[in-house]
């Protein structure tokens, strides 16, 4: 009897201890749930930000099963980026259009020096500029195709033509990136000495670069606006190159998370870069009479140079005696 009472007490104690465990393996509706206490996604993510499997094929990255950051990146790539890119690029085009129709083209001011030329950019400077510029245009268009192509172009030309175009656009983007990066390095070396910011740039900016009134603030070889373009091209160019190389060579430097971050940086800088260069193209061509000649023939009208880069002209006049700035068909800048 005593032994039987002891057995019953032990059974009751066992049931009391196991009852919570039994409750845990039931689903909210009371139905048995044998996998409720098994390893789940949430538990795995507490140990590591990604869930890996084990594979035997050479592609080790295929072992990555779930990476939640990829969903955030896809949300950025598919939902946010087209809007950001569209607003930045179209916003700049609208601003330039508004500026053109309100301020108009900045005309060349004629004086007794009109018609006389001064060398502004030598052949190698123009070569570096145009190599970078032509690559940039193709890189921009093929880059925008990554964002907008399937949304805007594919409905117009059809999936087959778009696939071919996108494939060649991708080749152009990957291969022309190299002469572009080389051009940026050339320009950095060529023009850094003339683009160091100084007090004169602050005065130029305070006067709105001559765009807001009739007065033309003094400037050296490059004014504050041109210096901003220079540093934008160098800074953004190098950043685009670095982030682009990390994507051209996947997994060489960083993992999938890192490459997604690189793509975000690359695309955001890219659209701002395009907007900035649109402003540069505008002011260097349509926006200002006489400005294109600097990169076209390399020679500018002396009257234009004296108005927009008076300090630089004085500097060149000081050098004129030894004649280093004189090229074919030029006259001394004095």
């Amino acid at each position: 009897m005593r032994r039987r009472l002891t057995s019953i007490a032990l059974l009751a104690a066992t049931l009391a201890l196991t009852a919570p465990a039994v409750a845990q393996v039931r689903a909210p509706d009371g139905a048995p749930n044998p996998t409720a206490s098994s390893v789940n996604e949430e538990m795995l993510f507490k140990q590591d930000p990604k869930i890996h499997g084990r594979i035997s094929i050479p592609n080790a990255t295929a072992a990555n099963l779930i990476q939640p950051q990829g969903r955030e990146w896809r949300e950025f790539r598919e939902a946010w980026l087209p809007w950001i890119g569209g607003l930045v690029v179209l916003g700049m085009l609208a601003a330039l259009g508004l500026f053109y129709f309100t301020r108009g083209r900045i005309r060349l001011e004629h004086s007794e020096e009109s018609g006389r030329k001064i060398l502004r950019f030598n052949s190698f400077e123009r070569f570096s500029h145009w190599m970078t510029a032509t690559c940039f245009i193709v890189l921009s268009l093929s880059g925008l195709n990554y964002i907008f192509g399937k949304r805007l172009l594919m409905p117009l030309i059809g999936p087959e033509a778009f696939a071919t175009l996108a494939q060649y656009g991708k080749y152009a983007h990957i291969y022309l990136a190299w002469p572009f990066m080389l051009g940026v390095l050339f320009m950095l070396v060529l023009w850094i000495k003339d683009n160091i910011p100084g007090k004169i740039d602050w005065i130029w900016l305070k006067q709105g670069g001559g765009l807001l009134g009739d007065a033309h603030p003094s400037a050296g070889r490059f004014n504050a606006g041109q210096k901003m373009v220079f540093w934008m091209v160098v800074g953004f160019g190098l950043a685009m190159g670095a982030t682009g190389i990390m994507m051209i060579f996947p997994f060489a430097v960083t993992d999938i998370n890192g490459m997604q971050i690189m793509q975000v940086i690359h695309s955001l800088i890219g659209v701002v870069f395009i907007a900035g260069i649109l402003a540069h193209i505008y002011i260097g061509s349509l926006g200002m009479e006489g400005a294109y000649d600097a990169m076209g023939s390399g020679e500018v009208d002396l009257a234009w140079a004296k108005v927009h880069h008076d300090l630089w002209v004085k500097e060149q006049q000081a050098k004129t005696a030894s004649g280093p700035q004189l090229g074919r068909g030029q006259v001394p800048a004095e």
Partner: protein
Amino acid sequence: MKAFLVAVAAALVLATAASFLLGENQRFAYQAFATSGARVSDPGTNLVGPRWTGDIKEPGKAGHHKAEAGS
């Protein structure tokens, strides 16, 4: 204009050189992402095989795909 044309030519030459240099480091997907045990044969330039035409008939019109795999 001369500087511009030389710049465009130089960009094309450098891009072509880059394409060859980068191509040296490229392998076909079936070489990079599968072991010899998983390769049924040399499938050509992609995993669907060299005789792939890409012409897939709709299921309602034809019972089988026109395109054939490499092996």
